[in-house]
Each structure stands twice: as C-alpha cells, then as structure tokens.
C-alpha cells in the first residue's frame, strides 16, 4: 500500500488517518527540562539543609515532588486542557484517585493496626 503523502489535503484520506500534528516543541521541552532541573535541585537542597524546620522538610519535599510531576505531565507528556485531551485528563484524574486510595488507605489501615497491636511483652505478662 502506498504511503499517504503528508502534504495531501484532509479530503482524500479516510477520517482519522494521517493526522500529523506535532507533539510539543523544542521550547516546551527545554522549559520542562529547566523546571525539572530546578525542582530536583531544590529537592536535594531542602533534604540536605539544616536551615529549615526539620519536621516540615517532608511536606516540602512532597510539594516539590508533586510540582515536578506536574511539570513532567504538562511539558513532556503533553497533558493539556485542549479539546483532544479531555479523555486523557479524565483518565489521569481517575488514576490519581486510585493511587491516593491505595497509598493513603494502606498507610491509614496499617498505622491503625499497628497502634492496636499488643506488644509481645504484654502477651507474655497475660500468660503468667
């Protein structure tokens, strides 16, 4: 079968075949890389510095990580608010929901079990 030339108009090809829009641009990839490097560098600095209030560092790292994931999604995976992207965004929202349920739910349940667990020494005392 002959390949459809990229220059041909939309009328002489079947619907949905040969739509060749470019994905992203050099500028968007470079901006994405710059943001990602900045956020990664910030994560390393935040984790190593002693200038910050220690209990807050974990939350800061989480925020930086989520920001960097957003940068990757927008600049590298090209998740946007465009019309052709609605399904991708909805699927992403569902994925985030499931991931949150799995991670937060596991941590919650296991922490609860751990708190209600009788220590081995207490069991020994009860047996005596």
């Amino acid at each position, binding site marked *: 079968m*002959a*390949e*459809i030339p990229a220059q041909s108009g*939309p*009328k*002489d*090809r079947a*619907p*949905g*075949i*040969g*739509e*060749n*829009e*470019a*994905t*992203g*641009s*050099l500028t968007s*990839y*470079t901006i*994405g*890389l710059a943001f*990602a*490097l900045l956020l*990664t560098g910030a*994560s*390393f600095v*935040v*984790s*190593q510095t002693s200038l910050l209030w220690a209990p807050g*560092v*974990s939350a800061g*790292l*989480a925020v*930086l*990580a989520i920001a*960097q*994931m957003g940068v*990757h*999604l927008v600049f*590298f*995976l090209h998740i946007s608010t465009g*019309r*052709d992207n*609605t*399904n*991708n965004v909805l*699927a*992403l929202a*569902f*994925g985030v929901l*499931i*991931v949150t349920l*799995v*991670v937060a*739910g*596991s*941590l919650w349940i*296991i922490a609860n079990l751990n708190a209600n667990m009788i220590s081995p020494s207490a069991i020994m005392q009860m047996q005596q």
Partner: protein
Amino acid sequence: MSAPAATAGFAQSLPITPTSSGGGPAPVRIVVAFGFWIFLLSDIIMFSALFAAYAVLSGQTAGGPTSRELFALRHVAVETLCLLFSSYTCGLGLLAIERRRIEAFYVSFALTFVLGATFLGLEISEFAGMIARAAGPSRSAFLSAFFSLVGLHGAHVSAGLLWLTFMVAQTATRGPRDYVRRRLLCFSLFWHALDIIWVALLTLVYLMGAR
C-alpha cells in the same frame, strides 16, 4: 489510495473532520495515545501498591542497616540527571522524527539509550554494593520493599531500552511511516512516565530516607 475524483463527492456530502470534538472519529494518533495512557496509568497504580508497601515497611529494618546508612545521595543525583536528560533527548528525538529529520532522530535516541544505560549501570552497581554489604533483599522487610520498588523501576527502564533499540531498528528499516511514528510516540510516553515514577521514588525513598 483511491483517486481524488472518487472521494470528492463523498467528502462534500459528509464533511467529516478528523477531530474528537467535531463529531467525527478522533485521529488514530489521539486514540492510540489515549489507549497507551490508560496502560501507563494502570502501571502507575501497580507502582502505587509497592510505594504503599515501602512507606509501611521503611522503618522495619530488623536490626539491619537503615536507609540512612545505605543511601549515597551523590550517586542518586547522577542517576536522576541521567534520567532527566534522557527524557529530554527522547522528546527531541520525537520532534525530529515528526519533522522527518532522521539524522537528528538517530542522534537523540542514541543519547537517550546511553543515558538510560548509564542510569541502569549505576543502579545495578548500587544494588551490587548493597548486596555485598550483606544488605540484600532478604535482610529485612525494609530492604525487601526497597529492592522490589526500585528494582521494578529498573526492570521498566531495561524494558524501555529494549523497546528503544527495537524502534530505532524499525525506523531504519521501514522509515518514518505513520504507524512507526505512533509507536515512537507510545515509547516516548512510556519513557516520560518512568521519569515521573522516578521523581516519586527519589523523594520518598532516597531524599526522605537519607535524612
């Protein structure tokens, strides 16, 4: 393909525009990317289970070495840079193939391969060093969770490198056809998604663990 004269009347009577919002069928490229995106999300959900396991077990060292003693952040920083730049060169390769610049595509994907292989080599040397220090996956629950989580990411990177080699060979033999470029798009989505998982891994496992 049929002659333009045969399709002209059809096209005039039914003005089908290939966009998802215009009422007609969505372009194949959009549909393929959506399907692959669903796969990637299911992959991320699988990772989330291992992340939950690691978060629960990270303190259970059974008297063995802790994360603080084991992780070398300089090593991890190099790994992170390798993955970030390989993501960038992968994106540049995709741009090059869309613009039919085959030479630039080969250079970008060769760089992507080298950076990915460097990452994998560093990770394997880290694992080998830990096992040599009697901190293998059987030492404690913490280390079992660590090796499954980081090892699964490493396995994904290995599979990605294999796929990359295959796609370069396919581009060389078949040229930048529509279906080859769709597969390259899927590969780039996979490679960028691995980077997203690495960001979570870096933060939860290494940066929070080394403190």
